[in-house]
């Protein structure tokens, strides 16, 4: 076993993902199978290989930065329009600090 149900619960916790018991069992099985397949990568010697984080193309280091000029923002109203709950120009969430 590459991964146990206990570990699945731990990872779900890290991912802020509530899972039903049936989902935990199913995910343990699926992830175990996928992780076993992924083990094949260990056949490759990569000790002298630089990791590739991004597809690169030629550009100066700062070329991707736009000019430092003010631009109109989206605006408070538009930004909050999709919020499930908003008020006074803010997103509203369940209370996190007790009085």
């Amino acid at each position, binding site marked *: 076993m590459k*991964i146990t149900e206990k*570990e*699945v619960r731990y*990872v*779900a916790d*890290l*991912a*802020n*993902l*509530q*899972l*039903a018991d049936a*989902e935990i069992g199913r*995910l343990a099985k*699926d*992830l175990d*199978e*996928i*992780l076993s*397949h*992924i*083990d*094949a*990568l*260990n*056949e*490759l010697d*990569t000790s002298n*290989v*630089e*990791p*590739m*984080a*991004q*597809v690169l*193309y030629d*550009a100066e280091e700062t*070329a*991707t*930065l*736009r000019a430092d000029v003010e631009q109109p923002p*989206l605006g408070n109203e*538009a*930004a909050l*329009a*999709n*919020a*499930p*709950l908003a008020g006074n120009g803010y*997103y509203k*969430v*369940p*209370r*996190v600090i007790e009085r």
Partner: protein
Amino acid sequence: MSASLTGLASLSIPEVKKGLANGDFTAVELARSALELAEKENPKTNAYLLLCPERALAAAQKVDQKLAAGEDAGALAGVPLAVKDVIVTKGVRTTCGSRLLEHYIPPYDATAVIRLEQAGGIILGKTNCDEFAMGSSNENSAYGPVRNPAALDRVPGGSSGGSAAVVAQGTAVVALGSDTGGSVRQPASFCGVVGVTPTYGRVSRFGLVAFASSLDHIGPFGRTVQDAALLLQTIAGRDERDSTSAFAPVPNYVAYLDGRVAGMKIGLPREYFEGLASESGDLIRKGIEVLKQLGCEVREISLPVTKYAVPCYYIIATAEASSNLARYDGVRYTTRADSETLSDMYRATRGQGFGAECKRRIMLGTYVLSHGYYDAYYLKAQKVRALIAEDFRKAFAEVDAIVAPVSPSPAFKIGEKIDDPLEMYLSDIYTITGDLAGIPCMSVPCGKTSEGLPVGMQILARHFDETGMFRLADAFEKAGGFAG
């Protein structure tokens, strides 16, 4: 043949242009008839999630006004098209195929959308896809699967299944999709249309909802190579709102569709022809004969790291996805599961909102990035990715283009693979390599199986050599008689 309104299914971009110039129809008439046709045909395939007639007709009116005033109405003037529902459209609902975004109305347009409309394109609606573009069959949409127009009991491929289907079905002339591991090429192949994954960075992703940022591309679908090239032409090029968009100038792609492919060196990677379903293999090999007749020099090559591409991809893509999908937390995007505490609210919103495949990938991605596993998985995968890119670099020192299958088999039946995620992942083997290397690649129709299922041929080229890739695909399309 003069282009008529009833023939929308067969119209190409040049035919729309001609029809407008001849006065065969106005842009508004064409948009109306396209919307009617889409409305009528859509129940067969479920390819459109939403039509936006107001936006379409307003855009068409603008085109008509420009034409009446004798102004240039743009390269896509009056062309009815569709946009995958992971690309945001201001004021028009964008769901990403997810319950979580069922009511999400974006406050801005993606750059690609702005460019399409500036060129006179008419957005008819938004197309169905796998949830957050995660899937190879379009069965992971919260709004039901798309059916393949070529065989309604089969999948259209994924994740851009809706975009491929509307072009195949003739309810749009062209469409935008997105490709992270094959999500444009594989559905194009399954539905029998042209689908292009441009070089990484060629098209701005501003407004493309992020899945795996080091791999995500926007790409065009068309019924001909020329239409797909014209669509890419309008959306390609540097955008200061996407720092990963490339500075390289955008050539005039259509100028390269000249049939001059004699002497072109084509590589056939040995590893891509092992384990290929027999009929698909036969069709690809017939296609290769066509390339030889056109004067291409065909030789076998080797891309030895290919067999490690699937595990490499499913580490990198899921790791990036688990980070990108963290934003769907019940605070900003329309859907929230009410709970007493903030932490429970996050968990419940995500637990109830994401479908099974998204959960699987969030879990895998979180696992491979978690403490103690980073080096063994994510860092290892980044190194293997470098080896895959190196495979291609070496190959392109010898050949001008690589020709390969798109998928091991043609479109499978709806429900056939849904319970076996690993098998579904393995079917992406021939498409994910191009995304990992960031090179341009495309699927071009290569005939049909005895059951009438389309099979696509894949062409891969050097970074930013879309011109050579289109030249070859166009010559092949014309010689093979597969167009439209």
